[in-house]
């Protein structure tokens, strides 16, 4: 699975090369919930409930049983990071895309970044300001 270092000699090398040969187990998504109106807030439970109801609508009970985790959620600006097994990524993404209302108010999920590595979501190259 992980091939590390070039094992010449016994002294520790200064850098380590890591090669992942299989696809990683989980995928991470950074998402943003947008409302047409302003001033709507929902807590983490309602947020997770919304995602599960979207999955249930599009993919039924099988979809609702997907192990989706909300790793972080910011209530102020409705940003969240989700973790999902790689086999359920397409299901989750399609369900998020097709969600359109929350309590009869129009809303939309924007998927900002996706990555198999959580650390990759720390920075966004699209937000870099170049001189």
């Amino acid at each position: 699975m992980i091939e590390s270092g070039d094992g010449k000699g016994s002294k520790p090398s200064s850098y380590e090369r890591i090669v992942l040969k299989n696809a990683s187990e989980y995928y991470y998504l950074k998402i943003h919930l947008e409302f047409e109106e302003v001033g709507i807030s929902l807590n983490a439970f309602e947020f997770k409930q919304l995602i599960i109801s979207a999955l249930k609508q599009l993919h039924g009970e099988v979809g609702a049983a997907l192990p989706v985790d909300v790793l972080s959620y910011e209530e102020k600006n409705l940003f969240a990071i989700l973790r999902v097994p790689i086999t359920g990524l397409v299901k989750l993404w399609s369900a998020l895309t097709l969600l359109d209302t929350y309590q009869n108010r129009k809303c939309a999920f924007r998927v900002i970044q996706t990555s198999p590595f959580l650390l990759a979501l720390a920075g966004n190259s699209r937000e870099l300001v170049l001189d």
Partner: protein
Amino acid sequence: MVRFKNRYFLCEIISEDLHFQQSIDEWAVHNTVKNVVARMHGDFGLACCSIAFSVKYLNAYTGIVLLRCRKDFHRLLWSSLPFITHLESRNERYRCSFNTLHVGATMRTCQKFLIHHNRNQLLVLLRNCTSEADRQAIQKSVQSCKFVGEEQYNSEDEESKDEESDDSMK
């Protein structure tokens, strides 16, 4: 040559309800299966399974039903069938369950399997029967079923061939 590939599900409906036989029809089975697919796999699954989905054959007396759907999505239908708990027909609910006997690519293979299966069931009955009269009756039907079955099989074989060519024309 290119054609649409289908999968045929040969299922038996198991029910202990006495009025079950008189009240089921193809439309009831059709609705029940579609509802359960919608419940298990949502809008997406329902849309996938609805392509070319149909109830090809229903025998209310033996409870045998033959369902057709596209090959690409047959696993969606397959995984939903065990979750059927009742059939709804004429505003009444009948408790039942579906037992998938065979999944075939053509109606002909399903028919072959069904004849084979029914013949085996007769032998099981013969082994388990208690009274002498029963035993003789079953032995008789085993013998007759071979002869009639073969004949019937040949004639129906041609029919199913015709149907297949019809399907491939579509």
